[in-house]
């Protein structure tokens, strides 16, 4: 038990992302309301973003923007990879956040169409109306 606690503390970013992911997944599966399902999808997405960004962190490193260089002739200074955090997760998540908002918009637009057609957003009521036909 005494050796387990440092392991748990050393990986706390993973526990947070797993918890968020479980909340999102449960909302997507179990919730009856379509908007709540969409919100669950959004929480799930946030968990993935948190996971990626936390992977990029390095101890003792700063943000991946080089300081004091201005375009021309900057190649003379040596840049050490250990001084800067991993830029790749930032790049991937930067686009994923904006695309996530856009897909959330599409999901909400579909929900509006469903509401116009069936006058409800509850999944069981929609299914009952479809079965009746």
């Amino acid at each position, binding site marked *: 038990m005494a050796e387990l606690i440092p*392991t748990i503390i*050393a*990986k*706390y*970013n*993973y*526990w947070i992302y*797993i*918890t968020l*992911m*479980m909340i999102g*997944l*449960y909302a997507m*599966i*179990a919730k009856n309301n379509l908007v709540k399902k969409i919100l669950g999808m959004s929480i799930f997405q946030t968990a993935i973003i948190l996971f990626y960004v*936390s*992977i*990029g*962190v*390095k*101890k*003792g*490193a700063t*943000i*991946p*923007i*080089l*300081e004091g260089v*201005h*375009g*021309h002739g*900057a*190649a003379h200074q*040596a*840049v*050490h*990879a*250990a001084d*800067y955090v*991993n*830029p*790749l*997760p*930032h*790049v991937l998540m*930067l*686009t994923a*956040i*904006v*695309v996530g*908002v*856009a*897909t959330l*918009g*599409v999901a*909400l*637009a*579909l929900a*509006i*169409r469903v509401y116009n057609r069936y006058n409800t957003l509850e999944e069981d009521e929609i299914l009952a109306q479809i079965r009746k036909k």
Partner: protein
Amino acid sequence: MKIIGLIITIMTGGFLVYAAGDFPAWSDPSSPASTYLSPYYIEKAIEETSVPNIVTAVLADYRGFDTMFEATVIFSAGLVCFILLRIMGRKEPETRHYRHVLTGVTVTIKEGRKIPASEEFERIDDLWTPPELIIKTACRVLIPFLQLFGLYVIAHGHYSPGGGFQGGVILGASIILLAISHDLRTATERMREKVVAILCPVGVAIYAGTGALCLLLGANFLDYGALASVLHVDPITARSHGILMVEIGVGIAVMTTMIWIYNNISSAGKYNQGL
């Protein structure tokens, strides 16, 4: 269903917790993610692209294709919202309400009648609530500075945190703030639906066109070094300029998509007063 969902969720969580045992610890410099490709980007980005912000260099140059198709995905999402929701050729209601802005008197007009075209009347819906004066005034002061900041974030993305995606979202948010604080009609008067619908593909076309220009100049698609002969700079600086061009394209596409999605969803495609 709730029980099954709970079981599936707990099982997934259990697998993830089990797998997390093999993952590197928090902020480990020798983790697999930080050892293979990323040192190359960090050490070579300034030599190869002359952009100090490594995130921007990787986003628009090393992973240019990825970003181009992300911009295409965003454009498609805006288009889908428009196609799903927009109600075209809808009949105008028989009675329309106009409000005299200065006095606050509401005029109701029957079918076929017209009011003289005047700046002093604004069209309102059946369910109209007056916008709060404090919020209106605060947003009126805030919006120009937001837009200026958005332009700064796009243009300064090479040297500080920023770029097309972030700046585009800020610019889009400034118009959405106008729509929330006043109403949707005011916002669409400033930024007409047609303008939004044209600018959105134009932003993607700027990105793809920069790539095609490189192709015409004899290099690979999105190989900005080829722009050196057009811009009269050395190939390394030309990469930095090429990145700025595609960031502007991304900024336009993202800004208009945010506005497009908001306009369609908030009014359910009717383009009336909105929320």
